């Protein structure tokens, strides 16, 4: 782990728009040193005076303009305590290791859950730009909670809707029928476990998130230990990995998913 400084920086919300069941925030920060990647997240201060934990949000887009700064797109739960356009917002990040892209064009399946669908869609767009064939699986507990399917369909070779319960079958069938050589998952740890298991069964690569940005009970700073996952191999620190520092993107075959879902 590097000890690069990771300081909160003052940003400005330039847009706060409804996006289905969610809100889409655009936040301008001083220009990022390295471009943001799908799979990264940001940490925002607690929403209210009676809250202790900060909020974690997936990054779902970024563009940097010389002399203007970097604009982060954040699709976030509509909790009713979000800053309005024009207001300031301090953010830490983008934090963590994002998804790795294959160097050769392959077929990929990207499964994303609920609000993480926007990050999944961004990953899909990146994969397509790299020449890959991309199938998105949008997982939601409720039909209202799929993110922006119109844009998702534009940026992928296929979009498939399911719920958490049906995700295993959907991803397995799709991976099998398309001959995908990599499976990605963004969202809750249960989804990651499911996708990693499907990948193992099919003997393909998986990259999955080890932490669910937006979930409650997380610090996102690497300090609380709540996100820790056990590793399959016993070599690394106490055989555990701390996804908000060492991830959030992890190779699916490295983690011991016992107990998930």
């Amino acid at each position, binding site marked *: 782990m590097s000890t690069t400084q990771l300081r909160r920086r003052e940003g400005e919300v330039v847009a706060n728009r409804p996006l289905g069941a969610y809100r889409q925030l655009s936040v301008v920060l001083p220009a990022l040193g390295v471009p943001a990647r799908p799979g990264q997240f940001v940490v925002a201060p607690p929403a209210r005076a009676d809250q202790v934990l900060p909020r974690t949000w997936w990054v779902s887009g970024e563009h940097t303009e010389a002399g203007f700064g970097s604009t982060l797109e954040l699709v976030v739960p509509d909790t009713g305590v979000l800053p309005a356009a024009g207001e300031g917002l301090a953010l830490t990040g983008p934090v963590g290791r994002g998804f790795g892209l294959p160097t050769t064009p392959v077929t990929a399946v990207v499964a994303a859950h609920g609000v993480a669908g926007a990050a999944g869609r961004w990953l899909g767009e990146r994969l397509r730009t790299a020449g890959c064939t991309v199938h998105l699986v949008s997982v939601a507990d409720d039909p209202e909670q799929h993110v922006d399917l119109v844009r998702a369909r534009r940026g992928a070779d296929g979009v498939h809707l399911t719920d958490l319960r049906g995700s295993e079958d959907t991803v397995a069938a799709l991976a099998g029928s398309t001959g995908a050589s990599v499976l990605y998952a963004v969202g809750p740890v249960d989804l990651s476990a499911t996708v990693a298991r499907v990948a193992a069964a099919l003997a393909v690569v998986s990259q999955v998130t080890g932490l669910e940005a937006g979930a409650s009970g997380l610090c996102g700073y690497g300090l609380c*230990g709540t996100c820790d996952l056990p590793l399959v191999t016993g070599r690394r620190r106490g055989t555990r990995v701390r996804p908000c520092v060492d991830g959030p993107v992890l190779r699916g075959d490295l983690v011991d998913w016992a107990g998930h879902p």
Partner: protein
Amino acid sequence: MSTWVPRVTPAAGCAGSGRELARFGDLAVLDAVLLGPVGLPGGAAPRSTLAPSPSGLVHRQAPVLPVDHVVDDLLPWFRARGLRVVCAVRGSTVGAVSDTLQRLRRSLDFATVVGVEIDLAAGREETRPAIGGLTSADPVGSWSADPQACLKLLAAARERLPRDLLLQAKLGGECPQPVAAARAAVGGGARALVLSGAVPALTADQFLVGPAVAPVTLGLVTTLRAAIAAGRVPDVPLVAVGGLHDRAGALAAHSAGAAGIQVGSGILSDPETLWRVHDALADAPPPTRDATAHRTGATTPDEAGDHDGH
């Protein structure tokens, strides 16, 4: 000679391995970094959990940093950077704590350790004979619930450590009789008391922490200061922890008689809280009561000569 305690450190379980915390500020400005809980692996829940509550958090005790990992990877990292470490140690038996301390002390980097904290809020297990001549270990509540157990544990810890190394005992809202437990801990060999406002909540092994419990922390400091003034507890410095996350809170604890402060969930809110609290106390006057005895930093380990580590 007055006992030195670091003025502001992170609280146990809230600073990762120390390295994560280094991303948010300069650890070298602190009197010491608290590392831990350190212990023998196994036993605890697989991971910490956090449930938000109004102005607080309910946490489940984190698994320990395995002492071998601490010795092999972490102490060298701290030592290479010239950082001082207080090791918070947790164990459910005297043997587990002694063993952990033994291994720490054998570390080639033990010189970087300027203090040890023993967690008395942790669950204690009693071994008793079971079928077939074997023994079984049964949970019997926290160490701090039994003053006699506190005395034994601290005495065992004291024995494993260099004579002049800071040994502090941590107890708090889980403790039915804080004065009795504190007296026993000091009797056993603790040279400072860490008083935590964390209170049992939700289910066994869970604790309410955060700004919500600040008045409980201040209550403990006030109670122990009074007990010290009345001669019911030997005169040792007090370190306060629990909801002390801003200048006002830190100064309130300081003027209630705390020589040191630990910052826990405030670091999770915003890691820079730690440095803000440090700065708030940096130019605070010495604690109002018993000021001479507890002036923080009066004698730092360096001034007193390095202790005879390993």
